[in-house]
């Protein structure tokens, strides 16, 4: 599956619904490549550790891929286990951190 992520510079940062969808697509795409399965079989309810095989040695690589694809930087100190339950919870974290970064930039 090809990446369909729009160019981050032209993406509307305020459109968080869209960002959530793009995060789901990016996560599914990355994991599908790693698992050598069709990304269409991965949904936002797919469990990252139990079903998709994410583990402590691969999670950092996934986060960096998301950063590169979506043009944001995670604050790794804020990451907690519940963010990594499913594709959807991780995508929600992406949206949350993007919102925070946008707020910081606006405030600066």
């Amino acid at each position: 599956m090809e990446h369909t992520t729009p160019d981050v510079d032209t993406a509307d940062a305020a459109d968080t619904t869209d960002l959530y969808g793009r995060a789901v697509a990016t996560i599914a795409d990355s994991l599908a490549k790693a698992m050598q399965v069709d990304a269409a079989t991965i949904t936002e309810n797919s469990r990252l550790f139990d079903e998709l095989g994410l583990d402590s040695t691969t999670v950092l690589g996934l986060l960096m891929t998301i950063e590169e694809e979506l043009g944001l930087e995670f604050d790794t100190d804020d990451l907690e286990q519940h963010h990594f339950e499913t594709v959807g919870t991780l995508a929600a974290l992406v949206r949350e951190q993007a919102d925070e970064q946008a707020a910081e930039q606006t405030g600066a």
Partner: protein
Amino acid sequence: MGETAGNFTGRLKAALTGTRDAELVFLGNFEVEDQWARGEPGLPRLTFGSGNVIVNRMDEFALLLAGKDDHVVLKGEPDADYLSHLEELGLDLPGMLVVERQDPGSTVTQDALEDQPVLRELGRLGARGGVLSAHGVGELEERLAERAGIPLAAPSAAVCKAVNSKIYSRRLATELGIRQSRGWTCASLAELDAAVEAARALLADGRRVALKDAFGVSGKGIEVVADERRLDRLHRMVLSRARKTGDDRVGLVVEEWVAKRADLNYQFTVGRDGRVHFDFVKEALTEGGVHLGHRIPARLTERQTAELTEVSRLLGGRLADDGYFGVVGVDAMVDPDGGLYPVVEINARHNMSTYQASIQESFIGSGSTALVRRYPLRLGAPLPFGTLRRALADLLFDPARGTGLLINNYATVNAAASTGKRAPGAGFDGRLHGIVVADSEDRLAALDEEVGRRLAAVAETTKRSAGSTAMGRQPSAAPSWLPARREPHIDTAPAPLQGAAEPQRTSPDPLGREERG
């Protein structure tokens, strides 16, 4: 384990205590690195998932290291049928100190610290001369020994931690003139900045670079990068955290990710008197980048073995000078031309291989070939040893024949069954550890494959009995992603074993995953 098990364990006792008949209490606190890494500024640490639940039950390995007059602290009572099986093999089992209420997410040390009867018994053993031998020593093990009133047969946690840093390994190898890949130790932000610049040149030359956490568990805490963008991103992550904490210390090693033909793991023991004994060397088997296990014996020339023995003497001498005694495992590599990288990292603690030493002496003859295996399982319900035994039947090790599968830990099979966090109908991951012994390469491969096939079948029956259906894995995912990095998944077809070790995978991986034994 009777007389047959005496050689290695006896030598270990002599090294740790000065006498071969010391009464030891073994504590299998695997992944003690987590303690050493606490507060250390390495790579961002993201340790989630149920992995630790299985790792914590690796405590049961100690059963096969301890002699019959020794003791083992355990998180849970072993499966009674498994114990009977071990006794039928002729093993004399040690005494067992089992905690009353284990927390699956805790190490055996943490559980023991909360268990008054175990603390009392440890104190009683300590009072009559018993000593505690941990997998590795961190502050928790020191606390346990102190609280229970039993001496630790080890140097201090501070010494153990210091000599387990990859920065220490690299500096020591440099000082002793031992061949290493190009690399740089980074104990400060300034050193990291310089290392990143140097690494940039390697990347520009088409080479790959690894950033390694100074206190990462063997094979974890490693990020391999092939381009500057990812190198800069990791650099930024470390810098960003340093800015926030105001701490300019760093705990990383940056080095070239070199081509290799095989991974090796060797072990030596440093006595309290500073004497060094080379124990053994094993070869890590991989297939297409997938770790399959260790091969016994390693396929090395006499010259290569002699080189590792000499390196052991050098390293052991320096470790003794720095106050360390006990077991030391070292990861090494063979380059594509047969040259050695004798020190990739030093693990001054027990290693997986340590726990195999006694059974290897007892059961693996000089004409045999063995493969140390981890078979991942996906289960729908707990799998009792009796059921597994019936399923494997003729494949299990037969002392008279000298071949078959030796199961050296059963607790990891059902460890994740009781975590209470599973969704209804969801299965859980387990892992069967064993050593496949055969009298030829071909028969070894066939036996390994048949064990995998039978395990897949018996795992399937647990899903039916649990009434669960799809486990969320796609048939086309075989071998699925989690174990694919290390081993084929028994939920599906096991990968056939091929003899030769493979070079590092060269195809790009979207998550930058790498494989280590």
